[in-house]
Each structure stands twice: as C-alpha cells, then as structure tokens.
C-alpha cells in the first residue's frame, strides 16, 4: 500500500465530508440557501472520493478513470437534456443506479473475501452484504420499473394478478435464505467450490431483482410519490449496508442520512393520503371504480359549464385568487400559461396564491419545481394547512388538472376510499372554476361532488390551450 498519508488522515477527511453533507442538508431548509447547500454537499462528495483515490493503491488506474469518465459523461448528458416534466423518472433512474452500485460493491467484496478465505466470510460482513444486496437490487429494478411507468414505457396503471402476494413472499424468502446460507454454510462447500459464498450472493441478487420488479408493477401511477420516496430511502440504506461491509464510516453516515430523508418523505406522502404504507404498496387502490349510474346521479343536471371569457370576467372583479395545480397541469405542460396568468393578476393588484397538495403530481414537491421553472416565486406556493383557512376569503379558485385532492367526499363520506385524506376545501371560496378535459374520475375512481356544487363551474378542455385562452382574454381587457 502506497501511503500518501495515514489512515487517520483518511478517516478525518471522511469526517469532513460527513460534516459537509449535514451542513448541505441544513441549508436545504430554505430556498434562499438551498443552492449553496447543494454545492456544499457536492464539495463533500468531491473530497471523499478524491481522498479515496489518493489513499488506496490503484492497481488499474485506467479502469477507474474509464468508469469515472463514462459515468460523468452520462450524468452530465442526462441532467442537461432533461425536461422539467421528465424530472420524476430521471430522479427515479438516478436513485436506482445508486442502489445497484451499492449491491455490486458489496458483491465484489464478498467475492474478494470469499476467494481469499476458501469460501468463508466473517458473519457480520455476510449479514451486512446480504442486507445491502437485497435492498440494493430491489432499489435498482424497482426504480427502473417506476421510471419506466413515469416515462410511459411501462403501463402506469396497476398490474395485478392472483397470487401476487405469494410470489413476492416467495421471492423474498429465496433472497433471505440465500443470504442466511451465505453467512452460515459456506465452509460446507469450501474446497469444492472456490469462493462458495459467492454463488449464493448472486442467487440473492437475482431473487431480489425480480422482487423489485414485482413490488412496483402492481402500483398505480398516482401512488408514485410514495414509491419514489421509499426507493430513495432504500438506496440510502443500501449504501449504509455497504458501509458496514467495507467498514467505511463515510458510507454509513451518508447512507443513513439519505435513508432518514426518504423515510420522512414516505411518511409525509402516506399521511397526506390518510393511507398506510402497506395499503399503498399492497392495497390495490382505485379498483372500486364508480359505475356510470352513480356518476350520473351526482352530475346529471348539476354541471354548469363555463368559458375562458366568463372566467376572465370573474377574475376582473376578484380581489383574491387561488390556483390549485395537479398532475393534469404537468401532463398538459400548462405551467407556463398558468404562471403568466398569475403574474398578470399580480400586476393588476389581485392577490394570487398557489394551493399545493403534498401528493399533487408524481413525486414529492413535483408541482413546486414545475412552477418554479415557470418563474412563480416560492412565496406564492402555499402548503395545504396554510391555504385551507384562506378559501373563505377567496373570490375565485382555479383548479387545473386536480381531482381527488379537492374532493369533499374525503371529509363527508366515511366509506369512500379517500375518507380522511386531507383535501383542499376549495368550495368555501366564492367561485370555483375547474379546468379538466372531462368528468372522468381521478385516481381513486370515485366521482367528485365538487363539480356539481352551485358555485363550481367546469371549464372543459386541454390545460395548456385553455389557460392560454384565458391569458389572451385577460390581456385584451387589461
């Protein structure tokens, strides 16, 4: 080992990296300091990787350099060409790669140790490697399926079949038994097969990879915020597990921080839907689709249509307007038209705010980044608890591409699949204008009595076109 500096120095460098990660996350608590926080965190990564390259004797510098150059080129290419609307799947993809890398590193270490010791590996290393391998492989394939669903390569609807829970349980059992075998039994095969811990590790990886696919395939598109957050937690825990395998404190600390972040986001997403994590992962939500008679009973004779012209007149006399965006706005790419409308209203002295439900969109904070890209100031984006008490003083609410998160059944019907879900109480405002392509139900599959309310007007049409028309009308008259 060429010692450019001592191992103590390396450990201190890892400590500095950990401090930079933590400080970076602390700076993420406010939009003003968040850019600096991200750079601080990146500096921590640079320091940790740089010191590792310098400290260890690199036998194959060309392999290492090649990997770094290829990886960096792909990373730069993807992040500079991504459209903001494709962000959920890109975040999912990156996440999966991190988890997969952790599983591979743990595997390579098992292989090295197994070959050196005639098949046996220390029990604590084996347990950590098995955990890291299972979680990492599930993260990798699960994220690929999630990204595929978000990108439209895999159907976004839930794919279910009889016995799916048994299949998942069996796959998990195979993975866990392979891990147990890897830890306790390798000496049985020692001598027969060099590095005998290794084959059971790859069986573990295989079973966990299939399990990752099977876990995410049955989950519908609108539950992706939970899935993406959970996979984020998994990738962190896989890195922490690999840290235990390698005895590396930097991996343990950084991986655990990320694991905590992912778990917190997962809990927030589940609470925002009043559903348990088990219900999201295994529930089969939205299957009890409403019959057309049920829909007719609520909607028939009670739907009032409106036009961009009429909305313009409503806005003309309004003092306060709240815009409630949903996934439909992202699909229609209507965020720029919506942002322009809010700016015009603002210029004409109308108070404008955005009411953003935590699960609106396909990942946590999805609506916020879309609106930020369209130059909506962050102080106009309000969370549910903050916006709900203000609806009574609001003249016009424009709901664009949202459905379930403004459904009053959540408050009134205990038997509804969305019962108890915190919703935006938009009907308390003077007038609600809902821009939607049709009366089709949201992800929950149930009708929305809001649309039949006396103070609710339906503005049917594509989000982008309709909002551009509204902007055009408003410009003409102001």
């Amino acid at each position, binding site marked *: 080992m060429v010692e450019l500096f001592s191992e103590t120095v390396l450990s201190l460098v890892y400590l500095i990296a950990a401090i930079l990660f933590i400080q970076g996350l602390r700076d993420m608590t406010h939009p003003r300091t968040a850019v600096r926080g991200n750079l601080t965190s990146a500096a921590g990564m640079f320091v940790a990787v740089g010191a590792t390259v310098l400290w260890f004797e690199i036998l194959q510098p060309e392999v290492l350099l090649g*990997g770094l150059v290829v990886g960096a080129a792909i990373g730069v290419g993807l992040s500079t060409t991504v459209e903001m609307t494709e962000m959920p799947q890109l975040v999912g993809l*990156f996440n999966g790669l991190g988890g997969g890398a952790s599983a591979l590193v743990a595997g390579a270490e098992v292989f090295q140790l197994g070959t050196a010791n005639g098949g046996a590996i220390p029990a604590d290393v084996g347990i950590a490697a098995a955990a890291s391998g299972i979680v990492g492989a599930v993260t990798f394939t699960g994220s690929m399926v999630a990204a595929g669903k978000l990108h439209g390569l895999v159907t976004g609807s839930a794919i279910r079949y009889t016995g799916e829970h048994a299949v998942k349980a069996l796959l998990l059992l195979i993975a866990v038994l392979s891990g147990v075998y890897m830890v306790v039994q390798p000496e049985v095969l020692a001598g027969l097969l060099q590095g005998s811990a290794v084959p059971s590790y790859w069986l573990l990886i295989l079973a966990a990879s299939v399990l990752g696919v099977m876990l995410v395939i049955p989950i519908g598109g609108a539950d992706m915020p939970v899935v993406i957050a959970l996979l984020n937690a998994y990738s962190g825990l896989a890195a922490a597990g690999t840290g235990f395998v390698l005895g590396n404190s930097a991996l*343990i600390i950084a991986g655990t*921080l990320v694991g905590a972040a992912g778990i917190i986001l997962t809990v927030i997403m589940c609470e925002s839907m009043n559903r348990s994590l088990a219900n999201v992962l295994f529930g089969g939500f939205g299957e009890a689709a409403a019959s057309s008679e049920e829909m007719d009973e609520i909607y028939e004779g009670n739907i009032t249509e409106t036009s961009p012209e009429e909305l313009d007149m409503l806005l003309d006399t309004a003092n306060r307007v709240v815009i409630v965006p949903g996934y439909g706005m992202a699909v229609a790419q209507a965020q720029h038209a919506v942002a322009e409308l809010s700016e015009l209203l603002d210029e004409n002295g109308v108070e404008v705010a955005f009411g953003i439900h935590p699960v609106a969109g396909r990942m946590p904070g999805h609506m916020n980044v879309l609106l930020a890209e369209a130059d909506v100031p962050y102080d106009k984006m309000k969370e549910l608890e903050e916006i709900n008490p203000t609806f009574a003083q609001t003249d016009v609410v424009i709901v664009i591409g949202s459905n379930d998160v403004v459904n009053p059944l959540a408050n009134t019907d205990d038997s509804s699949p969305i019962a108890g879900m915190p919703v935006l109480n938009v009907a308390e405002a003077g007038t609600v204008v809902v821009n939607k392509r049709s009366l089709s139900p949201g992800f929950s599959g149930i009708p929305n009595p809001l649309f039949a309310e006396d103070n609710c007007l339906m503005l049917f049409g594509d989000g982008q076109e309709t909002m551009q028309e509204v902007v055009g009308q408003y410009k003409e008259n102001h």
Partner: protein
Amino acid sequence: MSEIVTYLTFFVLAAFLGYSVITKIPATLHTPLMSGSNAITGITLVGAVVVAGSSSSTLATALGFLAVVMATVNVVGGYMVSHFMLSDFHGGGD
C-alpha cells in the same frame, strides 16, 4: 469496543440527526431534497473506487467498473439536476 458497535453507533446517531434536519425542510423543496440526497447515496462510489482500482481478480474489477459508472452517474447527475432546480426558485422580490 468492537468495530461493529462503533459502526452501529454511527448509524443510530446519523438516523437521529437526519430526522431532525430533514423534518425542517419545506415541502416546496422536496424534489431537490430527493435528488440531492440521492446524489449523496452515490457515496457508495467511494467503495466502488476501491473495488475497481485495487482488486486482484478480473471479476471483481469488472463489478467495480460497473459500480463506478453507475455511482458516478448518480453523483454527477443528481447534484446537477438539483442545482438546476434550485436555481429556479426565486423569492417574491426578484
């Protein structure tokens, strides 16, 4: 104190620290938080570097190479998209 206990100590303390820091992050920054924390997961690159650069067997080197590529995409891409997203956030005044 054995090594494994030391590592478990790091794990538990980091979990509590992460919890207290991350619960303070507002919902508006949750996407950049995810992509940024995601990039931190790429710390596994440290392990990948060691395996790719110092392994004596071809298989371990090949696994290490693949791991370096994947982790580097994660790190570089993750920090870059977070930076782009965060640069978009403007306050009311500007």
